């Protein structure tokens, strides 16, 4: 028995209408003899019989419109049955469908929450091998099938074989602890940060983010990892307490030619400190020129030996610190702070050294600098600067300065007017050493000169004290022989 079905005459045809039956039930029919007339969007035509035999059943009325493939009539074959090629024939539209790309399943992983959304992004990725090299496949819920089986029905839209990665669902409980709100972007955990935290078993709540808006960055996490584990909660490193406002940041829109850069947590702290400082101290400024020709020559002479002996590069800053420490001890009003109606003079020197690093500015403090020789100061500076840049300073290391030195010289300035690091009375700036013509004994000579200046608080000291102080620093630098103090 052969079933005659509605044929598909044209790639886009989905249905046809029986216009007229040319054979009735009981009629004999020869092979290729027309059975009926059909109408489709593209063509009206007769359909011939694939077999010879007798029409046993007509299943659809004239005038009916039916989908392609619908059984229309049955013919019982005469004599030897023709092979059931109606069943076995290659049906229309089966060829030509490509397998869906296995990349589709992975690509649907973009439905996973993006960290940039900012709201509750802490979803736990499914357990995966550390090392991350194969992380792309591991990140979606199920691996895509290796070989796609022949598509069951033609023209199925490319659906991923695995369900869309459940990481998209916000209902997945967070195994990573929620991070405290330390800024508008402190909730953003990048994929790298999450993975590192997981691999090294870190509690992200314990890590303060130094990234923009309080974000925990790769560097923050790496710093913890490389220092061997979690640290006590660290403040951002500014001496003023950080107030992190809880209100959400409105998103500004950029005009033409403009770019919006959100203010980082550190930046805000610095801004507050600097503004407060200018509103607190009655700031004045004095500068002296210092002839450091002999220091330059000294450094040239000893730097290789020094490097070899102490494993450090020798710069001018430790010498300036030593010279300044001496002057501070001599002029204690400069090494003081104003406390209400009292000037509190320190009999020790905690020297703050301003360090520029990736997040902005930080002032680590050499505690007890008055007790160190130049080598000791050099070591302390190297250590503090390195740990400042890798975000490894402890809170007590950024507090308690009695005086501060800043050194913009390496960047090229020849004179600067720094802002006082509260509650100090003064901040000294050590700028670039340049060769200049100077007058010595009424003749012109070329010497390495540097401008050393100080912003100072006129509430506590006057110009004479400030100038004498600086003159002392200058004298120290111009007359001391540092070689012995440097152990070379």
């Amino acid at each position, binding site marked *: 028995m052969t079933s005659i079905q509605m044929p598909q005459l044209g790639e886009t045809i989905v249905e046809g209408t029986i216009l007229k039956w040319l054979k009735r039930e009981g009629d004999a029919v020869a092979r290729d003899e027309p059975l009926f007339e059909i109408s489709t969007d593209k063509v009206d035509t007769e359909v011939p019989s694939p077999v010879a035999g007798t029409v046993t059943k007509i299943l659809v009325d004239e005038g009916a419109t039916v989908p392609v493939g619908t059984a229309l009539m049955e013919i019982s074959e005469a004599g030897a049955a023709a092979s059931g090629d109606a069943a076995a024939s290659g049906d229309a539209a089966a060829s030509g469908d490509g397998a869906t790309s296995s990349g589709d399943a*992975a*690509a649907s*992983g*973009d439905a996973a929450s993006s960290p*940039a959304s900012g709201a509750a992004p802490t979803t736990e*990725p499914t357990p995966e091998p550390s090392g*991350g*090299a194969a*992380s*792309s496949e591991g*990140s979606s819920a199920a691996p895509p099938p290796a070989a796609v089986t022949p598509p069951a029905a033609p023209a199925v839209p490319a659906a991923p074989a695995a369900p869309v990665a459940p990481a998209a669902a916000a209902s997945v409980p967070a195994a990573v602890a929620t991070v405290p709100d330390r800024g508008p972007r402190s909730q953003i955990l*990048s*994929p*790298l*940060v*999450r*993975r590192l935290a997981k691999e090294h078993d870190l509690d992200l709540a314990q890590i303060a983010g130094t*990234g*923009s808006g309080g*974000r925990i*960055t*790769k560097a923050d996490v790496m710093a913890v990892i490389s220092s061997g584990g979690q640290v006590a909660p660290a403040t951002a490193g500014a001496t003023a307490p950080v107030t992190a406002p809880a209100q959400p940041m409105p998103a500004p829109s950029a005009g033409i030619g403009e*770019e919006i*850069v959100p203010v*980082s947590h550190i930046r805000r702290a610095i801004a507050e400190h600097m503004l407060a400082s200018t509103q607190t101290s009655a700031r004045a400024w004095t500068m002296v020129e210092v002839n450091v020709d002999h220091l330059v020559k000294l450094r040239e002479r000893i730097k290789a030996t020094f490097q070899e002996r102490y494993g450090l590069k020798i710069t001018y800053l430790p010498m300036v610190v030593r010279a300044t420490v001496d002057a501070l001890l001599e002029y204690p009003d400069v090494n003081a702070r104003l406390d209400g109606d009292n000037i509190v003079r320190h009999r020790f020197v905690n020297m703050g050294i301003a360090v520029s690093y*990736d997040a902005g500015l930080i002032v680590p403090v050499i505690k007890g600098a008055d007790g160190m020789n130049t080598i000791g100061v050099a070591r302390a500076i190297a250590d503090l600067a390195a740990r400042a840049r890798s975000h490894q300073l402890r809170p007590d290391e950024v507090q308690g300065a009695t005086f501060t030195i800043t050194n913009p010289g390496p960047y090229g300035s020849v004179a600067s007017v720094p802002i006082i690091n509260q509650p100090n009375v003064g901040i000294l700036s050590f700028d670039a050493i340049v060769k200049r013509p100077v007058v010595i004994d009424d003749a012109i000579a070329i010497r390495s000169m540097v401008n050393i200046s100080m912003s100072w608080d006129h509430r506590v000291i006057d110009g004479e004290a400030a100038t004498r102080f600086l003159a002392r620093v200058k004298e120290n630098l111009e007359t001391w022989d540092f070689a012995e103090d440097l152990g070379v």
Partner: protein
Amino acid sequence: MATQQVEAGAAGHGAEPRGKRGEDGQATYLIAIAEALWEEMERDDRVFMLGEDIGVYGGAFKVTEGFIDRFGPERVMDTPIAEETIVGMSVGAAMEGLRPVAEFQYADFMSSGFDEITTVLSRYHYRAGVPLPVVLRGPSGGGVRASSFHSINPEPWYAYAGGIKIMCPAFPSDAKGLLKSAIRDDNPSLFLEHKWIYRRIKEEVSEDPELLVPIGSADVKREGSDVSIITYGAMVHKALEAADALAQRGISAEIVDLRTVYPLDEETILRSIEKTSRALVLYESYRFLGIGTEVAAVIAEKAFEHLDAPVVRLAPPNVPVPFSPPLEDAFLPQIADIEAAVDRLAGW
């Protein structure tokens, strides 16, 4: 490698390309390409060249100057202005055992042969298993005030067709080694020579005629640790300059030169991201659907857990390349733009 920028317009003279190196023995990008063609023509008789004005005239950019005297008009064929036929003829000749290298006066004119490239050249082997060792080559890219018909970066169009290996070298040695590889490869190749680089960049280039650069391999042109700049073509040189400026400010940029844009060397790209955790994809083809779009997608998809910042793209807008200098400069990514993008990434 010691690479120098030279004044535009410098070129040696002489019959053989090797004789056209500078006095210091270095070769410009253009001369390196000419050397590659010459050596491959000498090595294999089946290699022949066809294109407009390449024979008697020596080519619009003089790449093939002197070739017709050495190899004859059959192997250095001047054709009518019929780009479809130049491509189709290359296919037919390749089917019968020759190895054609078709020159397009400007890569912009390849689109006049678009059908033959994307329907015939790209698909024939996939459909019917006949290898087509055809090389299409021509000058692409802008920054030379040549406007939109002489400055295109057409690689995305033909990458989309599939079946054609597409190379965009940035350095003379790479150009020479890659072109030789392309000519020896049995698959169709598209070799795009950035015209800004032609006479501006020169370097030490090997004289070894067997020294090849593998197709589909990217190269780290500068090591770094803070951000990866994935790029190709003339943008590599801009990125290198930007990297110098960034280093002064303590940001260490790694520069990955793709060299081949299709197929992509995903391994080298991903390895760089694993190292730096930040990606800037810098490309001269248009921003929307340019080559960098695919690179960015690959990084986002396959290096997701190594990213500490979003993947950022920097590319010209989808407009025809403009002529007036301030317009073209605004159109192309400049060093300041690269620096700004890196700064944003580093501070994210």
